[in-house]
């Protein structure tokens, strides 16, 4: 069970890759899907490795991603987690 997860607001993303590059555990990759402006938002490729440290959030110049720790947010996060839903949406688009 991952210690954390991320939420991506895909439409804010400009595909700069900062979050992918500076995630200490290499959780993220730029997806091949496009958002409305034609950028490739990130998605989780190694979700189990996410610690919820929020470094991705600190680096994102467009406030499009942030990390959160699982325990803290359990009461408010929906069962599957918005990150999972978002990743699924990106995945579905890719497929």
């Amino acid at each position, binding site marked *: 069970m991952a210690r954390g997860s991320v939420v991506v*607001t895909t*439409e804010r993303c400009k595909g700069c890759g900062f979050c992918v590059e500076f995630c200490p555990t290499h959780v993220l990759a730029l997806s091949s899907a496009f958002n409305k402006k034609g950028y490739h938002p990130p998605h989780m490729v190694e979700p189990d490795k996410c610690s919820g440290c929020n470094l991705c959030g*600190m680096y994102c110049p*467009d*406030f499009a991603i942030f990390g959160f720790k699982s325990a803290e*947010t359990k009461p408010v996060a929906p069962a599957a987690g918005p990150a999972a839903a978002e990743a699924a949406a990106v995945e579905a688009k890719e497929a």
Partner: protein
Amino acid sequence: MSTLIEPTALTNPVEKVLRNDRIPTIWCPGCGLGTTVNSFAYALMASGADLKKTAIVSGIGCSGRVSGYVALDSFHTTHGRAIPFATGLKLANPELTVVVYSGDGDLTSIGGNHLIHAARRNMDILVVCVNNMIYAMTGGQAAATTPGAATSTTTPYGSFEPELNIPQLVDAAGACYVARWTAFHVKQLEKSMTEALKKKGFRFIEVLSPCPTLYGRRNGYADGLAQMKEYKEMAKVKNGAPTYEVAITHGQPIIVGKFVDRDRPDYLTLMRSQLGAHYHEVAEVGVGCGDESEGKEGCCSC
């Protein structure tokens, strides 16, 4: 379909201090300005500053847009004049925490004289200078901070002017707090900003930040990320380094850290003690021309 996450309890923590209706920002993909805003947003929250009594002032330029994205009382001023506006704000309402957030072209070139004298006066403001080493918004002209040999729209054969060492300048003029970080050093920058927000006197933080559009692409960086990686590789943390040793030279290590942290009485404190009984807070004497008679065209709108 990719969807926009509806705001829930699980929203980006920085949104508490941002004007979310103004986002997405106008900044280019890979611009580091937004990254510095993250550090600032967390610092604002960590410092315990009363956000109702905190004001942010910017000059002109890409960095000048920051004041429009942060949910504080914001002033977007004329080119180079952020510090004089901030000075007026602080003197008229001393209980405000006043932050100037602007770029290198605006603060050190167009408004360079104001920078020197605010540091000399030890005006109680925090100045965050985002240094992208170029006049970005106006078209990529060389600035006083453009490193020697760098190519810009006005130096197509490379700049032949030595660049300004800003920490040394403000240190010499008397700043109480001087630090430099890069957009790569998000955590250190947050800590520095938090510390500086709590301190009194003239505080100055320089943040090197990638400008892929107008600086990077002319100087061998494929994108913003390439500049960020260079910061990671080339930065050397040297807290307390003498500021005359921290000039940025192309191809040399970038010295970052907290260089100066000292205390000396600020402008307002000195003014109050010097004037003694002659000093009155603005609120006591009232603001304006004093002529409030109806229907009369006054000298101002008081």
